[in-house]
């Protein structure tokens, strides 16, 4: 396998890199130190010039986000790191938090300086016990070394970082849902505008950045914006972590330059599918992304615009491989249950629509489908997406329904007409 440039995983294989002493021996916190000598605007400019885009799923330019924060020195500003990784098929932030907690903290110090923040939080999903323990220990060690706390590195800059433990809710990965959860309420997303950069946590300016996004910042500062732009494409600069899962020979998390062919990820790096299985479909960016047929997948490149061309999205980088033996009605049953279960219940189209869609898929799967159900699924999915709700969960729930039904329509029709499908052998009703 060819060696690909590494930004995030550059030091991943160094033994004990999660320890502060080892991290520092390998250049750790040098960039935080350098950033504190620079003007905040200068730091933001480098990140803006690098073209780094948010790695949580939406792909919003990071430097531009930072620049929205008001420069009013009297106002408290917050940096909120989103470590609520819950998009099905995604397991990249967890690796960074567990194995490289100091890389994330260094990125956060730099970002905090850029937006003039002195109190930051890392919101980690409650299930990630090891990530929480790794970051709590890392923060404690930073205090001992004067890397966090008052007068960091002898400068005038103060910063406290706290770990906040989630409690099991997918919606808290949505930035305003995360803020609600931090504020001690249900994880209900809020109407935007105002955007968090203007009125976020405690109605004060707040920047919410994904773990992977922040972890890329130290490298960018060290090597410069142009060096980062050497990787990836013009619209998707840099590298990205891709999580390959499903019945392939080498599942795992891989750092690759954006624009990498999906085909090569599955067949070269992933070693192809397990014996006797053929590729049927691929979900390129977590459960929310529209599914690609095998034919489409072979033509797709892994960058924001490459996925968009194919009518889907890069999302979180969770690449799920689906073999020819998988019944698509069954798979949609799993996905539609997830969104029904995770809808926060605030907006009617989402709360009702996700439930209806799952019920209809359930009846099709269990021999109770009616001929009109295929069109009904498409109608509901169309009617709940496109900005009819406060957040994008409704869209995320609608896209799989729409794409599975359109691209694998015959399987849905067969289930309804023949009351069976030769792929659906699983009979335990869940």
């Amino acid at each position, binding site marked *: 396998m060819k060696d690909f440039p590494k930004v995030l995983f550059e030091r991943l294989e160094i033994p004990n890199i999660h320890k502060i002493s080892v991290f520092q021996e390998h250049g750790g916190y040098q960039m935080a130190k350098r950033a504190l000598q620079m003007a905040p605007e200068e730091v933001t400019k480098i990140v803006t010039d690098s073209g780094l885009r948010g790695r949580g799923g939406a792909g919003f330019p990071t430097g531009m986000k930072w620049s929205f924060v008001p420069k009013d020195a009297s106002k408290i500003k917050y940096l909120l790191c989103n470590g609520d990784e*819950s998009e099905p*098929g995604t397991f990249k932030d*967890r690796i960074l938090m567990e194995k490289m907690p100091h890389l994330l903290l260094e990125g956060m110090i730099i970002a905090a300086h850029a937006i003039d923040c002195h109190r930051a939080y890392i919101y980690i*999903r409650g299930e990630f016990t090891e990530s929480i323990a790794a970051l709590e220990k890392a923060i404690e060690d930073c205090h001992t070394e004067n890397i966090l706390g008052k007068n960091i590195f002898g400068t005038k800059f103060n910063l406290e970082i706290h770990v906040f433990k*989630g*409690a099991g809710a997918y919606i808290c990965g949505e930035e305003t849902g995360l803020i609600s959860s931090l504020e001690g309420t249900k994880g209900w997303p809020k109407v935007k505008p105002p955007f968090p950069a203007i009125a976020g946590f405690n109605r004060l300016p707040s920047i919410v950045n994904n773990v992977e996004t922040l972890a890329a910042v130290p490298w960018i500062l060290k090597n410069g914006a142009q060096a980062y732009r050497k990787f990836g494409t013009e619209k998707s600069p840099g590298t990205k972590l891709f999580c390959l899962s499903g019945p392939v020979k080498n*599942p795992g998390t891989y750092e690759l330059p954006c624009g990498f062919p999906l085909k090569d990820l599955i067949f070269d790096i992933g070693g192809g599918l397990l014996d006797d299985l053929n590729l049927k479909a691929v979900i390129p960016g977590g459960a929310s992304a529209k599914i690609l047929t095998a034919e489409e997948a072979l033509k797709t490149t892994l960058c924001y615009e490459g996925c968009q061309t194919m009518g889907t999205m890069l999302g979180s980088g969770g690449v799920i491989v689906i*073999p020819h033996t998988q019944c698509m009605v069954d798979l949609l049953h799993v996905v539609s249950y997830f969104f029904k279960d995770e809808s926060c219940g605030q907006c009617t189209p989402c709360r009702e629509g996700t439930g209806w869609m799952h019920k209809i898929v359930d009846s099709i799967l269990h021999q109770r489908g009616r001929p009109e159900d295929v069109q009904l699924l498409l109608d509901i999915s169309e009617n709940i997406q496109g900005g009819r709700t406060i957040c994008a969960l409704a869209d995320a729930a609608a896209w799989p329904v729409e794409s599975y039904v359109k691209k694998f329509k015959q399987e849905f029709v067969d289930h309804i007409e023949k009351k069976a499908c030769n792929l659906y052998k699983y009979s335990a009703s869940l």
Partner: protein
Amino acid sequence: MKVSFSPKALKEFNSFEGLFDNPKSRLLPTLHLAQREFGHLSTEVIDYVAALLNLPSAKVMQVASFYTMLHKKSVGKYEVTICTNITCAMMKSRELLAHTLKKLNVKEKDMTQDKKFTIRREECLGACDKAPALRINDTYYYNVTPEKLDKILESLPS
């Protein structure tokens, strides 16, 4: 029955104050602490947390009921949560769940008679490259087969 934190838990609760600019943010950390202390969030516990934070009980209940990791009824000594999302489902986690429920003769989310286990499905646990994945209390287990899970469950002390 009235409940109250041990001195150690009370000390931890008091430390939350310094973490936030708005005292309301203490609710979720306090609920986590209360669950660790009392096992689950009974009505008495909800009332106690509400009094500590000077919030209405209904508000505390509203938040407690929103999150799946917060238990409103008691759970077994070992809580087994099996991922049934896309990749794990394709790698036979639903069969694993059905097998375990049958073997222990218990319904999903209910406790076994000996109060040792509660089994339930969980959404993506972020371990899709090692599917099927599950958690038992705070520990992850990967590439789990029914035989492997039987052995794990047998090895856990009552």
